[in-house]
């Protein structure tokens, strides 16, 4: 036995045993443990295998910077890989497995990599697996990925619930140690809305592991009293288990709250994790400081741990990291650890100090070796001794754990996430946060003020300044009295000279000193290059422990200051965030909203098969019994509309009500064709251009009164047209007196089309809708029998006699039902998008399949519609550009296969007969194609160079995707009723 549970002490509940599993073996911990402290209490030092060499690795830290103790927690689809055992809160039933080992942690086949390590230096893979090139993706990379790497991701669907939430505050305090608590107290008492967030499940930060007394009570009692007061303040929100991972624009912080990661059976009504976006007027970073590892030979064996982590395990968790502990230190912190462990009855094998003439005092009876260098460690799967070198004299000292302390690094990650670079402090021998303005202020140890007195005072002062800045008054308060303060002094030591074994910098990525040296020699000495070349500081810990030593060594190797080397770039996230939390509830049916037409129920009743159309669900076709394919239903619907009558839901079209004395003038400028003199009671087809002269959108607009127009847009661009109009009204022509609003959702709108349409509509409408009274393109308000007011438009997309009837949305289903009932005698059918599309292609009508942003009005055959008289309209100027008026532009034509049983598909390209398929020979493309039930063969709309001059020509429809070349005849795009005889009846 080496590591063990102390008989007393710690903030664990010794009455609450928790059984958990590690690699299948049941172990027992205590409530208040982390998985790491519970493993140590069970003397499980070996917790993982390293990334590259598969070296045995143990717990190094007691927090979020842990590089080694990465485990997989959970079963089946609820598996979380790469969880740090040092922050995983223990619960009964927790099931953890070690990673990166096969067949077992103790006997790992991959450890053979360690024997090969002379060949596996930095850059090895890139240099070795260079050819053949195709092998990289197919052979080398999969093998390397299997051998190296961290935990395995689970590909099953994640059954857990996640959510996102917003929060707002005057002051966000990140970290609940002495600095954060004091800041939250000062700001909270002054009345600020404060959020205090901490990643730990128990708040208090470093106070939880301190042995000194504050205001006459233990540091833990002081923290608890402070928290109790904060909880009593209604303006303070305390968020435990919440990692603030990112700092974004407008002082918004990203945080993830582990709501139910510490329970075996999550409640269904709560998420397991909640992603917070915290909009903070000010933020105070009280994230403390990280103890710096020492780089010495054999420093990666299980049992080598941060001295501060040993203190935390002893004082907070009541766990001793070993029975005989050697301390290797370059500053006072190592002595503190020695004193605390000695006080708990742990033997201190020796203190090795890299400095000479030190003032620090070792515990009574403990051997102190000054000016010592650790050059190796003994033991295989755990430390059994330490080799110390002093002036050429080597000595082995037996021990079962080694605590290392290399000084302090402020945790400044968040402050550096938005581009500002960390600043080297020669006095503190570390990097400090840059000045990033008053939105984010760094305080306490995170600002290099490491003493408890310094932390408490800095937190209080900076919170008071923020309060004053925001207009609150914070009364000056007496500072808590600290009995015995910590001494943070140290002398930087980047490398313990004379290493006889690999001296690791980055434990997680297996980067050791020689790798950094190799990077430097091979020209990758820039800190960012060295990171990529060696992988130092990559993966889940992002260099929290290793970054500073890599910089220090790169500087030391070149004989320059770390200030000239700098740090790598800090980016979100501070610690890994699950994809589930980032997605929140936006998955499955909540991934995007569904828009439903007011006629959705009517369509369902009539057997609609729906299709996504943007956010809308629209009926694609209405299947009847016996119909096996969509084509059968569609063909029937098309024939029925041509022969009898059909009803189609067109409620999804964008609808805009336009009011005002200048509404006509506004429309005249928005559309390329004339609208100024549109009579009241008339509808007109309108074509909207972009400024560059290309068609933007089309639709019909009707004049309901002199100052009230009703515009329809395509479904796809309803929102875009509205924005475009807002821009025009607010920015381009603010002098025009016009107002408009969307009425898309107010109206249920249905097209009733077919030779019998009038019979059906007249049966419902009081007003006379005969051709004489209500001719083609008439528009107006009518009364339905029974009194309901409706809008009626005589417009046709199908080419048949057709009406569009709009009624208030709530009544839509009832009216559609009535039309179907009335139409039954006339053979009415419901028809969907597919039939709508076939009908309009047969008539040569365009949609956004044609108006794809590259098409001018003339290309589509609307050249004569573009008004030459109007002084201006959107798109007028650029319409006259040479390229837009060139004679060889592609023009819309119809195509029909020369052999009637051949098929044409949209997207196919057009070639002259005999021409080789190439971009140079491209003559155009097919924009829409379908089978025409009316004609009995395929038809297509296509854009062909100078197409309108080429009716009758044979052209090859080249379809590489379908592997078919079809010869087609170029023709007029209006296949059905080119003389419009059916419209004017």
């Amino acid at each position, binding site marked *: 036995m080496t590591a063990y549970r102390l008989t007393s002490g710690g903030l664990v509940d010794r009455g609450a045993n928790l059984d958990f599993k590690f690699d299948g073996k049941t172990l027992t911990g205590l409530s208040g443990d982390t998985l790491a402290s519970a493993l140590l209490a069970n003397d499980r030092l070996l917790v993982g295998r390293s990334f590259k060499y598969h070296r045995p690795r143990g717990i190094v830290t007691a927090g979020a910077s842990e590089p080694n103790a990465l485990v997989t927690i959970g079963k089946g689809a609820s598996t979380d890989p790469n969880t740090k055992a040092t922050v995983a809160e223990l619960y009964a039933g927790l099931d953890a497995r070690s990673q990166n080992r096969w067949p077992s942690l103790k006997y790992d086949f991959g450890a053979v990599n360690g024997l090969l390590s002379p060949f596996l230096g930095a850059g090895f893979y890139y240099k070795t697996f260079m050819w053949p090139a195709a092998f990289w993706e197919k052979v080398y990379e999969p093998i390397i990925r299997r051998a190296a790497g961290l935990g395995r991701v689970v590909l099953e669907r994640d059954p857990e619930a996640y959510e996102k939430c917003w929060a707002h505050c005057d002051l966000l305090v990140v970290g609940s140690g002495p600095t954060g608590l004091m800041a939250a107290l000062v700001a909270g008492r002054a009345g600020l809305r404060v959020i205090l967030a901490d990643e730990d499940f128990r708040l208090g930060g470093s106070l939880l592991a301190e042995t000194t007394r504050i205001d006459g009570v233990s540091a833990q009692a002081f923290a608890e009293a402070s928290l109790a007061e904060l909880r009593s303040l209604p303006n303070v929100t305390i968020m435990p288990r919440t990692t603030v991972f990112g700092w974004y624009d407008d002082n918004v912080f990203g945080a993830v709250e582990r709501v139910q990661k510490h329970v075996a059976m999550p409640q269904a009504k709560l998420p397991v994790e909640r992603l917070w976006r915290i909009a903070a007027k000010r933020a105070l970073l009280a994230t403390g400081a990280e103890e710096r590892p020492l780089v010495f030979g054999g420093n990666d064996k299980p049992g080598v741990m941060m001295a501060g982590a040993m203190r935390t395990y002893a004082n907070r968790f009541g766990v001793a990291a070993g029975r005989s502990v050697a301390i290797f230190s370059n500053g006072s912190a190592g002595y503190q650890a020695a004193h605390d462990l000695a006080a708990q009855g742990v033997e201190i094998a020796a203190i090795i100090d890299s400095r000479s003439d030190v003032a620090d005092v070792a515990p009574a009876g403990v051997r102190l070796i000054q000016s010592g260098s650790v050059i190796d460690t003994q033991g295989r799967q755990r430390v059994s001794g330490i080799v110390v070198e002093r002036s050429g004299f080597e000595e082995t000292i037996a021990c079962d754990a080694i605590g290392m302390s290399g000084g302090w690094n402020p945790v400044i990650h968040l402050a550096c996430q938005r581009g500002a670079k960390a600043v080297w402090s020669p006095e503190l021998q570390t990097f400090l946060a840059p000045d990033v303005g008053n939105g984010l202020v760094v305080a306490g140890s995170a600002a290099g003020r490491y003493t408890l007195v310094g932390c408490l005072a800095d937190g209080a002062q900076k919170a008071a300044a923020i309060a004053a800045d925001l207009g609150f008054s914070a009364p000056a308060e007496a500072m808590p009295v600290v009995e015995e303060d910590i001494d943070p002094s140290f002398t930087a030591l980047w490398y313990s000279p004379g290493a006889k074994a690999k001296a690791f910098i980055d434990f997680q990525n297996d980067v050791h000193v020689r790798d950094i040296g190799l990077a430097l020699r091979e020209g990758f000495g820039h800190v960012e290059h060295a990171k990529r070349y060696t992988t130092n500081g990559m993966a889940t810990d992002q260099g929290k422990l290793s970054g500073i030593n890599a910089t220090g060594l790169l500087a030391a190797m070149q004989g320059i200051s770390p200030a000239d080397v700098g740090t790598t770039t800090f980016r979100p996230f501070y610690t890994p965030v699950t994809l589930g939390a980032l997605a929140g509830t936006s998955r499955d049916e909540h991934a995007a909203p569904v*828009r439903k037409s007011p006629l959705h129920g009517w369509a369902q009743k009539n057997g609609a098969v729906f299709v996504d159309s943007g956010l809308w669900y629209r009926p694609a076709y209405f299947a009847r019994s016996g119909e096996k394919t969509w084509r059968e239903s569609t063909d029937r619907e098309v024939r029925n509309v041509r022969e009898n009558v059909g009803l189609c839901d067109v409620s999804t079209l964008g609808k805009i009500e336009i009011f005002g004395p200048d509404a006509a003038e506004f429309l005249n400028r928005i559309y390329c064709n004339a609208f100024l003199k549109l009579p009241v009671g008339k509808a007109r087809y309108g074509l909207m251009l972009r400024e560059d002269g290309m068609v933007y959108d089309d639709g019909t607009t009707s004049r309901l009164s002199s100052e009230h127009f009703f515009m329809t847009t395509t479904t796809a661009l309803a929102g875009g047209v509205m924005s475009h109009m807002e821009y025009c009204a607010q920015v381009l022509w603010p002098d025009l007196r016009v107002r408009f609003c969307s009425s898309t959702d107010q109206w249920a709108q249905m097209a009733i089309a077919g030779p019998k349409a009038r019979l059906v509509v007249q049966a419902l409408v009081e007003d006379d809708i005969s051709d004489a009274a209500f001719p083609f393109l008439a528009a107006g308000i009518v009364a339905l029998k029974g009194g309901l007011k409706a809008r009626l438009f005589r417009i046709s997309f199908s080419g048949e006699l057709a009406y569009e009837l709009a009624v208030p949305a709530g009544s839509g289903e009832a009216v559609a039902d009535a039309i179907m009932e009335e139409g039954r005698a006339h053979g009415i059918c419901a028809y969907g998008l597919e039939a709508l599309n076939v009908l309009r292609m047969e008539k040569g009508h365009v949609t956004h399949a044609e108006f794809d942003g590259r098409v001018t009005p003339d290309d589509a055959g609307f050249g004569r519609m573009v008004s030459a008289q109007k002084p201006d309209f959107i798109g007028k100027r650029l319409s006259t550009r040479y390229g837009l008026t060139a004679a060889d532009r592609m023009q819309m034509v119809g195509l029909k296969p020369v052999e009637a049983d051949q098929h044409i598909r949209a997207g196919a390209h057009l070639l002259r007969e005999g021409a080789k398929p190439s971009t140079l020979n491209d003559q155009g493309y097919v924009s829409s194609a379908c089978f025409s039930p009316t004609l009995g063969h395929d038809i297509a709309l296509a854009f062909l160079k100078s197409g309108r001059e080429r009716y009758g020509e044979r052209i090859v429809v080249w379809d590489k995707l379908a592997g078919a070349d079809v010869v087609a005849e170029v023709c007029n795009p209006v296949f059905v009723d080119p003389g419009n005889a059916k419209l004017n009846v």
Partner: protein
Amino acid sequence: MTMPYISRHPLENRLPLEPGIRAVDHMDVPRGTAIATVMAMDGEDAAVAAGLAVAGDMSLRFVAPGEWLAVSQSDTPEGLCRNLSLLLAETASVFDQSDGRVVLRLSGPNVRRILAKGIGIDLHPAVFEIGTSSNVLCGHISINLARTGENEFELIVMRSFAESLFDDLRLMGREFDLSADFSAQG
């Protein structure tokens, strides 16, 4: 052929016709609310606002500069539009949106926490005061949000999005057992 065209509420598939048991946090869905868009003509913003302020029997929701939704629980859509048109005459355009918008009323001690799951603006009563309203996003959906009491909010959403918003709100309120039904008073 004469038919009394029955009007359907878009949440009829989601809610029982009869009121159920209310939790402390509740979503109340009024069936018949008269809603109209009021758009002031250029230069008439202040006059229209003043006119609307004295109009009884309706609440106003801010949509955009010079644009409001007028909401009435007691008036009919036709009545509301008629009254507004008479009141505002040439200074504003009025358009009936009663069928195009759906009203959802949330009340209860946790409503702010529920809404914070979808709405990014600060709903603290000192910031978003009683009587305030604004167009905001709730998750993916644009709504008009009004604070009608310390713990009472009214959401107005476009009809086509009503079911999706309702489903989202149920999910957001799951933690607090949010209940929902149609208003008893119709």
